């Protein structure tokens, strides 16, 4: 059991956005967090990475809660935010060094890995450039390279596909499955449902701050036989139902 979110009630101010959210991500599993804009995907993620504190409920990573042991909890996470965020005054190379420093990585090994990743995302000739001037897609790639440089046990990836070129999307998915094989758990929020359907092991469908349903695609099909075959169809049906009720 890697990530476990239990009875999470939370949000930004006093008004809860999330109401009793429960789900988990097991070792070596890629879970897709699916929901409309404003369903609570990013709020859930902000709770997991510790930007927000739960009003009620708990979040544990391999049994450790955030306030049990901040160090142990946070060391296990690598996070790719929805909006790439980079240091204005640091070059790409310095961003990588910053990551190595923060995750206490072995310099030689990390650089070897960094060069592979940079080549993969065609950033290898831009080491001395400032990512702040990159396009959104390229800054997104910087965030991906930094995250996959680490040996984190839990990857939190918030809507990674927007702005990425198709090649990069494919490479990212390969990286994710590689890490899965090594036993890491991945939580990914996304709107790109057909990609999610092909790669995620399980889905958590959020609607209006609640988990509408969760399970593998087969389980979802069984639960909603009349909805259709694809995740897209199932989700659209659920979302409309949710709005109607």
């Amino acid at each position, binding site marked *: 059991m890697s990530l476990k979110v239990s009875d999470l009630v939370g949000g930004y101010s006093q008004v809860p956005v999330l109401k009793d959210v429960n789900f988990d991500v097991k070792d070596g599993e890629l879970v897709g967090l699916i929901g409309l804009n404003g369903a609570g995907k990013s709020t859930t993620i902000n709770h997991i*990475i*510790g*930007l*927000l*504190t739960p009003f009620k409920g708990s979040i544990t990573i391999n049994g450790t809660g*955030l*306030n049990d042991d*901040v*160090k142990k*909890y*946070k*060391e*296990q*996470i*690598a*996070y790719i*935010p929805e909006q790439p*965020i*980079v*240091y*204005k*005054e640091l070059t790409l190379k310095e*961003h990588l060094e*910053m*990551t190595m*420093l*923060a*995750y*206490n990585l072995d310099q030689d090994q990390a650089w070897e890995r960094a060069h592979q990743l940079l080549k993969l995302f065609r950033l290898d000739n831009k080491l001395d450039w400032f990512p702040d001037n990159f396009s959104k897609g390229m800054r997104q790639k910087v*965030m991906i390279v*930094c995250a996959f440089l*680490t040996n*984190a046990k839990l990857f939190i990836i918030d809507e990674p596909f927007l702005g990425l070129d198709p090649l990069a999307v494919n490479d990212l998915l390969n990286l994710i499955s590689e890490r899965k094989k090594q036993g890491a758990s991945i939580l990914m929020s996304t709107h790109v449902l057909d990609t999610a359907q092909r790669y995620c092991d399980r889905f958590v469908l959020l609607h209006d701050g609640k988990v509408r349903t969760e399970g593998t695609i087969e389980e979802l099909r069984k639960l909603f036989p009349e909805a259709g075959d694809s995740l897209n169809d199932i989700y659209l049906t659920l979302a409309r139902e949710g709005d109607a009720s």
Partner: protein
Amino acid sequence: MKQLFKQRLTTHLKEMMRYLRLVFNDYFVLALLFVIGGLGYYYSNTLKQLHTGLWWAPIVIIGILLVSVQLGRFATLIEAPDYVFLLPREADLYHYLKSGFNYSLSIALSIQVLFWILLMPFIQVTMHVTAIDLYLLLATAVLLKTTWLNTDFARKYHLKRRWLSSRFLFRLLVPVVSFGFSIYINYWIGLAVALIALIVSWVSRRSWVTRSLDWTKMISDENSRMHTVYQFFNLFTDVPMLQGSVKRRRYVDGILNRIKLIPKNTYLYLYGHGIVRDNEMSGLYVRLLVIGTLLLVFVKGEMLPIFLSLLFIYLIGFQMIPFYFHFSDNAFVHVYPITDKYQLMSFQRVLLYLLTTVGVVFAIAVVAVNYTSLVTVFGVIIGEALEIWAFIYVYLPRRLARSERIR
């Protein structure tokens, strides 16, 4: 982590030095010397007329000490991307923040000493004090400031006991009580109150350093601190880092909603909402309006009020001019099917509203103070009307045409 702070501090200080060099150029230093000399002379003259037993002197002392304790904020030098890049090192960040705390403390304490030195002659003239009392007062200010900063440190964590970061308690209540005891009763008691507050705040550190950090608050605190610093520098030079912050200001909606939604008014809509909600612009406008009005209330004379109100209207109008280009980086305005002709007309209309408001307020102030002098009353009204007209319809188009050529 300590290394990281050192690195950031070096870059930060370099940046500050660059701006300070711009601020303290030769002319400004010369002007400042005169101002300081003048104020010092005024201060020493005033002191000669004071004596012990003035009822308001203790209140002034407490007030000034209270202001002094508020100065010097907690500089964390945290940057927005830190919450992603330093996420795994959050537990070690305490050492980083501690370096920031020590740095901020050293600056804040120097400020306390400076204020204490400035205040010392005043206290000696108006109160019965011994040298020991004065040192006790300094110690109290130092303890209170340390507590103040420690509270701000606690604020950066997700606290279990929220009162530990209560700004009302540690920034206002405790200092007021402590200085109150010092000045009115006994300096030892004031010091004791400050010491107790510090011990409470300091001992509680152990309970929150192990908790998780409130990144959102930490980043927004640091941004607002830097914003204040940049705002100060922006008075003297252009600061590119200063991105305007925006406030909703619902209470102006009534006026803004009167703009008719027709294509001709596109820019009117943009400029109207923009100027009101952009803190830089509306702040400047309100500040100058208030300062000008206050000045006019206190100034009497035949020609001086007219001259002052005209000067302030010109200043306000002049500061608003760059806003004309505020939206030119926005792709939308270039895509909209509207002509430039309306842009100038809309801007003129917004300025007309703003400057007329200023004119009316100034005129009321001037008339209320100088209603006996008909020359001043009519001079102000006619002068303002002429100036506003000339500024908006004669000067502004030319000035904008020139700026447009340079851009």
